[in-house]
């Protein structure tokens, strides 16, 4: 991939990701409503929500939290741009974690016990899914001989076939990363759960709008990571990746509606078991082959 191509792809992500993310969030809410036998809000509802947040009066309990949430947004965008520019997968994952850390800090710096407990739980969940993400990067390297996303995307043959275990583990981590039930314990899109709104309890107005937009960016980047498993440098691989990414999101919505929230112990233990069995198992098979 040439430099110009990389820059164009990063710019496309910068402009189109919030639009696509917003539509995905709208589809999520509509679909969830349909699964519960309701009509549900219009697809554009997440956009209305964000515009409303921007119109509201700004109430901030601790000024630093706005800065941290802005950092979260910034680093999520940087991560996505680096991903679409075909840069180093490890660097992308570490930058994503850095963004995540800023969000946790934002939740910690407000005095509310709800957001404090939410931040604590987010740390546990991060501990559960980080090994899986790291193993995915290692497995990609073993299979394609490169950490560069550009090289991985244009390597021969779909990576998903030898990396099937890692792929399934990644789908498991995706539920945690998208904060869907049963692992939505740090913050939930559905109101009235044990922690009110968890990490976001103290966020309002523009801060909440920033957070929502970062979720749109992040979701698109994560789904692109799903698609990366299918990229083989041809249009077929690209198309299959796109379809599977959309299907993966629909699966997450289905799981979200079908499960009750689990405890952080379950999240942590199951995350590590999945990482060990499917992730490490797959890597060992790759090494032996």
């Amino acid at each position, binding site marked *: 991939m040439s430099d110009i191509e990389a820059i164009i792809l990063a710019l496309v992500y910068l402009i189109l990701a919030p639009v696509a993310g917003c539509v995905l969030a709208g589809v999520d809410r509509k679909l969830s409503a349909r699964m519960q036998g309701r009509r549900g809000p219009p697809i554009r509802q997440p956009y*209305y929500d964000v515009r409303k947040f921007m119109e509201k009066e700004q109430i901030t309990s601790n000024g630093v939290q706005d800065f941290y949430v802005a950092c979260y947004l910034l680093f999520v965008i940087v991560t996505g741009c680096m991903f679409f520019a075909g840069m180093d997968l490890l660097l992308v994952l570490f930058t994503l974690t850095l963004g995540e850390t800023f969000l946790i800090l934002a939740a910690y710096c407000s005095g509310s016990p709800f957001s404090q407990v939410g931040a604590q739980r987010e740390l546990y969940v991060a501990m559960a899914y980080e090994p899986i993400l790291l193993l995915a990067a290692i497995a990609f390297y073993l299979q394609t001989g490169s950490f560069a996303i550009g090289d991985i995307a244009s390597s021969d043959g779909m990576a998903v076939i030898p990396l099937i275990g890692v792929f399934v583990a990644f789908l498991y981590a995706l539920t945690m990363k998208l904060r869907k039930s049963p692992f939505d314990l740090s913050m939930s899109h559905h*109101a009235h759960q044990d922690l009110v*709104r968890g990490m976001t309890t103290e966020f309002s107005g523009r801060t909440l709008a920033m957070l929502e937009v970062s979720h749109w960016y992040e979701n698109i980047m994560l789904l692109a990571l799903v698609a990366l498993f299918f990229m083989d440098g041809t249009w077929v691989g690209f198309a299959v990746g796109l379809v599977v990414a959309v299907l993966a999101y629909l699966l997450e919505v289905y799981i979200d509606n079908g499960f009750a929230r689990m405890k952080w112990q379950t999240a942590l233990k199951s995350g590590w078991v999945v990482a060990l069995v499917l992730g490490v198992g797959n890597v060992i098979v790759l090494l032996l082959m």
Partner: protein
Amino acid sequence: MSYAKRSPWLLHYDASSCNGCDIEVLACLTPVYDVERFGIINTGDPKQADILLITGAVNDQNKEVVKQLYEQMPEPKVVVAVGICACSGGIFRDCYNILGGVDTVIPVDVYVPGCAARPESIIDGVVKGLGVLEEKQRKMEAER
């Protein structure tokens, strides 16, 4: 049209209701009435709420709580008193511990009478509240 009108988030507080009105408020979220089709979300967080739904009369103990919830909500905000107790105190009006309707503590924008208020009238009240919300939004923008 202001966006507040398209995505009003509710905060529901039970002042000293008998739970009759509370159940009717929750009934609005069920598939039969489904207020989410108007973008309404029943949130538990005052900092993210636009409309404060209060059921039941206010008493000496929860007076401060009601005030605090109201103050924590960012502008523009609307208060809807649901049920006759929240409107005026209802049959509890003369009790020694009851201060009266919600308007004895915080300004109320919409009154929804009934014992218990029917889901239809609660939705009507909220929709009426949306008009007030838009008006307040405009006023806020004009002041800016």
